């Protein structure tokens, strides 16, 4: 890594791309949480919620709601994501509460905006838990391992691209898709 003396004229850096290298460094040292938990400052656990554990079906249902039912979500990585969330004190209780307020609610929301309107993401803990669920599904990464690369929503949500390595590719790439 090398410091430069000047920026090109007329330029203002807006995105912290330098931290891409820091990501690499962190991956090597195991000092960054791959699934992004380092983005999230630790939050107080809050009052204990007297709810049962979240089942995989409930987690999948919540995931589908948070993604507006736009994707076909696979419960195999889903089980890994659920296990990661429930083993993390930062997310375990808020996840139970989030499921209680959505999937188990009398009037179950059907979209992300419904969840927002219902107030289920009002607290910081709930909002960060929902964010983490989306990070997991989009990245396909959980607890320093890849749960699902080809089906990660970061790829599945791009109608013009294929996840690299599928061998499918494109008949042509010199025109707009």
């Amino acid at each position: 890594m090398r410091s430069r003396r000047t920026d090109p004229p007329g330029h203002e850096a807006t995105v912290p791309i330098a931290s891409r290298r820091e990501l690499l460094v962190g991956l090597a040292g195991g000092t960054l949480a791959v699934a992004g938990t380092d983005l999230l400052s630790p939050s107080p656990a809050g009052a204990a919620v007297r709810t049962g554990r979240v089942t995989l079906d409930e987690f999948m249902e919540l995931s589908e709601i948070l993604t507006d039912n736009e994707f076909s979500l696979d419960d195999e990585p889903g089980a890994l994501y659920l296990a990661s969330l429930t083993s993390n004190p930062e997310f375990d209780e808020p996840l139970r509460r989030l499921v209680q307020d959505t999937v188990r609610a009398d009037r179950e929301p059907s979209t992300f905006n419904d969840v927002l309107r219902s107030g289920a993401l009002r607290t910081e803990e709930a909002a960060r838990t929902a964010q983490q669920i989306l990070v997991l599904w989009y990245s396909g990464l959980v607890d320093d391992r890849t749960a699902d690369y080809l089906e990660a929503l970061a790829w599945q949500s791009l109608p013009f691209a294929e996840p690299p390595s599928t061998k499918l590719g494109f008949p042509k790439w010199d025109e707009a898709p």
Partner: protein
Amino acid sequence: MSPVATADVVIVGSGVAGALVADRLVRRGVSVVVLEAGPPVDRDRAVEIFRRATAKVPESPYPSTAHAPRPTVLDIGVPGTGYFVQEGPEPFGSTYERVVGGTTWHWLGSTPRLLPSDFEMKTRFGVGRDWPLTYADLEPYYVRAEKEMGVAGDGSEDQGSPRSAGFPMPAVPISFLDQVVARAARTIGLEVLSTPQARNTETYNDRHHCVGNSNCIPICPIGAKYDAVIHLDRAVENGARLISNAVVHEVLLRADGTARGVRFRRPDGTDHEVLGRAVVMAAHAIETPKILLMSNGGRGIANRSGQVGQNLMDHPIALSYALSAKDEPVYPQRGPLSTAGIESPRESPARGRRSAFRVEIGNDGWRFPIGDPTFEFTQGPFPQLREGGAALAARWEDHVSHELRFASLTEQLPDRANTITPAFDMLDDIGIPRPRIRFSIDAYTMAGFDDAQALHERLFGALRARERTHVPFTFGAGHIMGTTIMGTDPTTSVADGFGRSHDVPNLWILGSSLFPTCGTANPTLTLAALALRTEVALNAALPGLPAAA
């Protein structure tokens, strides 16, 4: 110690240079043994490993074995980690593979030629060194190398390197993104040219054409991109013997100073020998000088000049990102990783005072250097708090569809202080010294780095690009060069213009370690052309060499 094999020619290293020479020699009836430190690679299995990797870096699909460790970009800049013993002042940022087929497994596939002026840096610009051969000397071998590797290109474009023959295949179509950049570049007087590349645009040598899966680095999933296994397989079919997991750590000398063969170590720690009439070092620009310096009881061989392991060079990358104008999506992630570039800065009028550079236009959006979009989701800015559903998917799609990336390859001058030496005090798991590297980037290169990013900024301006970012440090290009440079003077160079050692008459060196200067072209085609030229000279010299014993 009885030898495990004897051959006319012993080749150390199974990358593109060693593979091409092995293939040619065996077809002439010369017996050949190729030794490779690492294991073979199964493509489908490597693709699976790539998919499971958490960081999609160039090394992701390939094994790092205990007996043949290799550097990874994940280690760079992390003191005390990795295979390299980095002694600074700056980290050396390039890596390579130690597997059968070498680094052609994860190379980009771009095959521009050097320019005629690149061979005459001292004469024309007063810096660096002149090569002991001219562009005209190498040109027929460029043609052969392009045919062997299967290069696709547009012969009607003037890339600055005169051609005596057309390309073997029609050019890879430039991407939609390239075309958007080309229109903008034209408004500021710059021309975007298609990049010659060793990937098939039609069935060639029984291999499928490229389908643009944007994964040339780290692995082409279908083998449409050239890799050295193609020539290795053919060499073996024709009688060459390939010994993998054989870590050569010494060139053996006779009393008269000629090379007798090599000694290698197995993963179990046992040592063995292969003898030959000629020894060819083709282990790339870190391992080749390391082996030479480890030989002769650690006193080194072929080193009258004192320059084995010196003059380490790379093409330090100037990297810039931006988003295209809101009304002009560019749709990256379609096509090979790079299909076009801007070549005119390679002939910068300031050359001699400031590094020239070559602008590579990326088709992979903001994926460099991590290789997949997880960064944006694990380190921000996606998703924002209380963002989700279709709106999140739409914002992500909008972002990626506008992603632009330029990477310029700058030129480093040979500097004897940039070195790779065996770290006799830092051994790997089978007791072989790791590479100790001292490396810095001088003001000449950094001036070109500044010029490259200024040009990127002009391009972004012409593109009305948003969120412009110029990364304030260099990245390794993966172009390791210059550690056994060739020249006419045995006191200032390691090998002659044919790669033959000045000091050990039956020792040849292949690869980019021979480059006296590095120009701005991706080096693989040039080192392949040099290897084919060496093969002719080596074959002609064989009858006069001592018998293997």
